[in-house]
């Protein structure tokens, strides 16, 4: 038995340089210090993404992306297909947990200043991954074609439509027409299973490669001698796996006790029900737009808010170059404060959407 295994290994090794890769892998270490708990979140994001890919591919077997059949096919999956309820609920719940994990991962990297060069490219690819995953969420949300998702999509694309100059064309391109329709389902489906996965693999591949090449970032001021380095294989990865097991259990409990609802089928002629809002990860922007005053000087309030977000996003993207102190391995409390403000803003705005929906 062992002989057979050795022979197989030798076969693949001579063609794929497995032993060389193995040597490199053995060298990979993870620093262990009081903040190294946050290192797990990158792997958690990856794990959840893989779950999404698998459940997504499974759902693809029975889902039908047309106005007449989308809702019914989900109903079919939930009622007729064996374990369809499980696959679908896992996909919906994991999507939300994944985006939550991405935010945690991003903020922990920010506060640990992991973006400082040479890891600026990792940060940039990470930023684009955040955008890609939010688009994943937005496009996927419409696909069951129920009342909530129809109106949330309409509200979201209406906002895109308010951008000056490009707004109308952009909205028409996204929707595949003037309003949310069957063409929108096709387009969002196209995005969700082809375009976004393609770019995600590209950026994710680059992101992970960079982490392997550059290693884990240590917080500023942690001298090399003080920090213990543990091998990634097998120590860290076993702990990673333990975390993944806990998450799996959590997802299982959520799916059995809080299955994702089917909702009511979307009716394109119906009037908008009260209290429509996008998924939770968009609500901080949504509530900002609701609270912003109608006019500020001569500029329309909403437009100002949208530009605010665009500029804010740009600053966030370029933080590795703006934070000079961190680049020089010096403590930069100013940027930590900035991060804290952004984080609190997002939390407060999200909470407001749910606790005071009638603003």
């Amino acid at each position: 038995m062992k002989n057979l295994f050795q022979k197989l290994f030798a076969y693949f090794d001579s063609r794929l340089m497995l032993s060389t890769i193995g040597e490199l892998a053995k060298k990979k270490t993870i620093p262990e210090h009081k903040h190294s708990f946050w290192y797990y979140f990158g792997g958690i994001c990856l794990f959840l993404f893989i779950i999404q890919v698998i459940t997504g591919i499974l759902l693809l077997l029975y889902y039908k992306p047309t106005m007449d059949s989308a809702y019914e096919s989900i109903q079919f999956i939930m009622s007729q297909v064996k374990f369809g309820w499980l696959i679908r609920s896992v996909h919906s719940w994991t999507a939300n947990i994944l985006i939550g994990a991405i935010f945690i991962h991003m903020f922990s990297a920010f506060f640990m200043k992991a973006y400082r060069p040479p890891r600026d490219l990792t940060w940039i690819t990470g930023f684009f991954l955040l955008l890609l995953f939010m688009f994943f969420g937005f496009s996927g949300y419409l696909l069951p074609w129920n009342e909530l998702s129809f109106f949330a999509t309409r509200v979201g694309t209406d906002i895109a439509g308010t951008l000056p100059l490009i707004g109308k064309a952009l909205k028409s391109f996204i929707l595949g027409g003037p309003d949310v329709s069957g063409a929108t389902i096709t387009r969002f489906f196209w995005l969700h299973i082809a375009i976004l996965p393609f770019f995600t693999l590209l950026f994710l591949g680059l992101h992970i490669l960079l982490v392997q090449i550059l290693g884990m970032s240590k917080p500023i001021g942690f001298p090399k001698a003080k920090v213990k380095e543990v091998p990634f294989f097998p120590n860290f990865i076993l702990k990673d796996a333990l975390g993944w097991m806990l998450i799996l259990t959590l997802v299982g409990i959520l799916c059995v006790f809080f299955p994702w609802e089917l909702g009511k089928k979307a009716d394109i002629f119906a009037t908008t029900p009260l209290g429509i809002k996008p998924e939770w990860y968009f609500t901080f922007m949504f509530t900002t737009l609701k609270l912003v005053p109608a006019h500020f000087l001569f500029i329309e309030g909403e437009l100002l808010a949208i530009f605010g977000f665009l500029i804010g996003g740009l600053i966030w993207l370029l933080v590795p170059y703006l934070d000079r102190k961190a680049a020089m391995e010096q403590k930069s409390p100013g940027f930590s404060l900035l991060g804290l403000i952004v984080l609190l803003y997002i939390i407060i705005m999200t909470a407001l959407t749910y606790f005071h929906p009638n603003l």
Partner: protein
Amino acid sequence: MKKSISGLVIFLFFILFVPFHTLADGCIKCHKELENALKAPAEAFQMDVHQKYGLSCTSCHGGNPEQEDIDAKDDSFKGVPLRKDIPELCGSCHSDSLYMRKFNPNLRVDQMELYWTSQHGQLLKTGDIKVAVCTDCHGIHGILESSHPRSWIFPWNIPSTCGHCHSNKEYMKDYSISVYQAEDYKQSVHAHALLEKKDLSAPVCNDCHGNHGAAPPEVTSIGYVCRQCHPSASELFSESPHKEAFDELEISECEACHGNHKILPPSDEMLGTGEGAVCIECHDPESTAYKIATTIKDELDDFKSKMLNAENKLQRADKQGVEISEARFRLQEAHTTLIQVRNLTHSFSLDKIEEKIKEGTNVIAEVSEAGDSALKEAKFRKRGLIVATFFIFLLAIALLFKIKQIEKKIPQ
């Protein structure tokens, strides 16, 4: 000097303004300058349907609208008509089909004829001027078409129009009829449909009593009146033994159990022999009818509880996330059967009712089975979760051991 100047002004006033007025405005013009009760008719008439067709004050009151001198006598002027003369006055046009054809060929011309057959008309002939005449219901000067929502005779305004007299205790004290009809009606299911749900097909006073030939329906014909909208229940009733019995005993058919004005949504408690049941108002406990009534009620209650049971199962499964839309669809059939059974009670035929209940029971059995398997599925999911969690738990423990082993480099 002053007198001649004011005289000149008055003269100019009439020279300049009078020729510009048309025939109809003569009366209106003056009366509008007056106050209160003398002004009101002129104002109200602006909205009147007769005005729209080119008629005027003189069409009913006679007189010469071009005459400005109010003291001058005009033989054609009729003044305010007496109440007893009003039907003839309105009928002078409204019963003339050749004349009415010029305005609205579709309008009926038999109102006056019908009016004389009504209770109001009969009493008016004897000299009682307290009864309703045309103007009491239609209005006097601001008469609107019956299709206009603010017309006194638009369906949802009728209860208050009739109630204006019929609910007035003082006014009605010389007559031996109730004064609670409008009040009772307002609590009924018909009033709810008409006044709250704005369903114009719901009956109101004139639908059962007639409008111009208004009279309460005779005891033996109440069933026929209700049949206009409730054909099924009425047919079943007519075929049942109750029709003959009720007619012989002169018991008003539908009214005996459902009331006349205060017709409430029927409840299952009206059946059987318990509190609120109508059957025991006639039938003694020893009679066959009493036994049948009890059986019908019991079987209906049984059917309902089976249906509720099945519905509950589906709801429980739904709460636990199992998809049950197919079963709910089937339950809709059972719901149809329940409504049919309730209607069939008017036949008082145990056979017919039992047959229908059996149909429904079969459907419910199917739904219940579907509910059971849905609940089983919910249990299966929980069990599956426990199994998977168990393995994950084991794996987690194994990982912990492995991690500890590697970190502490436990000697073999």
